[in-house]
């Protein structure tokens, strides 16, 4: 289990099989003791619903909320104080990533929420993997050849000179990634 979830509040979403009160209490205490997770609520499975083909592992049902978040309220972020070089990958599914360096060609950053690169973004960036479609990618110098937000993939036009100002990429109308000058949020 990822330690960055420590102290988080979680919702347990029980599909089938349904647990009894004693088992839920045990699960609650185990989560608190071992992972420092606070259980906000328990959604009980519906007996009448058709059972899933294979029971999902427990950790899966904890970390996944029932629906994709719509705002960045309460979303955690992780700071990466270095450059992501070719072949290196930085992933933070729980929230946003802030890179204090470059993301070089061949490097990859993936975040559940936003991605902010305080340098040049030359590698692959994939924001909004948690399904939040308002996720954005901001870079001081946005030189990536491919961007992804949610399920939208964009290939930038090649042979473009860097504009010399920060840019922001977001999902615009018709589910196309648009890149514009970043002024402020």
């Amino acid at each position, binding site marked *: 289990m990822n330690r960055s979830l420590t102290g988080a509040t979680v919702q347990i979403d029980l599909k089938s099989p349904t647990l009894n009160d004693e088992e839920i209490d045990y699960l609650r205490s185990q989560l608190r003791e071992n992972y420092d997770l606070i259980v906000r609520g328990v959604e009980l499975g519906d007996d009448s619903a058709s059972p899933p083909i294979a029971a999902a592992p427990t950790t899966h049902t904890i970390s996944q909320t029932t629906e994709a978040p719509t705002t960045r309220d309460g979303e955690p972020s992780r700071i990466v104080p270095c*450059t992501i*070089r*070719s*072949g*290196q990958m930085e992933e933070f599914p729980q929230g946003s990533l802030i890179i204090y*360096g*470059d993301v*070089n*060609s*061949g*490097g990859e950053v993936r975040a559940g929420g936003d991605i902010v690169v305080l340098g*040049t973004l*030359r590698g692959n960036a994939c924001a909004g993997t948690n399904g939040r479609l308002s996720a954005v990618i901001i870079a001081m110098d946005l030189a990536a050849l491919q961007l992804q937000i949610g399920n939208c993939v964009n290939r930038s036009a090649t042979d473009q000179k860097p504009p010399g100002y920060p840019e922001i990429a977001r999902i615009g109308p018709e589910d196309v990634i648009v890149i514009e000058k970043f002024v402020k949020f």
Partner: protein
Amino acid sequence: MGKVIVVTSGKGGVGKTTSTANLGTALALLGKSVVLVDADVGLRNLDIVMGLESRVVYTSMDVIEKQCELNKALVRDRRVDGLMLLAASQKNNKDDMQPEQMKAICDKLRTTYDFTLVDSPAGIERGFRNASAGADEAIVVTTPDVSAIRDADRIIGLLQNVEIEPINLVINRFSPQLVGNGSMMDQADVLDILNIDLIGVVPEDSAVITSTNRGIPLVYEDGSPGAQAYMRIARRLTGQRIPIPDLEQKGLFSNILNWFTKKR
């Protein structure tokens, strides 16, 4: 106690072996004791570039297999004092050697020689791991093209993971003409991406090819621009502070412009 420096690049054909041969010879010419270790097991080349092919009897694999003593496996270069070569086995492959075995060899050489230069094979697999296992420092060789730079970037990440420090950059086959007409990356572009210290720029020089074929490292004949560049890098490796000359060819107009911007 000497230094063990791995010469590596990720991509093949950028000039690792040529750089190892020339830097090693240059360091010996400066009066240092140097041993060159070919870590390219199965595809050895350093002996040819050094012109010592005919005198290789034992290899690092023989040392590892305890067929001979380390000192006996070293080939002495008779043209200059204090320059030795430890050749790689040509009949084995890279998986026959363990990183720990290479480290043991480097640890022994470090006690006797001022500089141990390890010529790494291309790639990021076992051969690279063997070559870097015993290294204190690294020299990353790249050419100013995007594919070589991406591979150099990958190698730098791997070297940083194992905390080899410092990592110095050599930009090889630099062509001022191509930079001048905008079809080659300049020094600043390369350094912006790789973000490590530059220790030298070697210009594109046809004398490199002829010297490789003749088995006489370029630095023996001091006249060529390539030889001078390697001599400067060797001096920097010994701790001398020598500025990196600006090889980029600029027109009269931009020189005047530079002069004015520097004044202000």
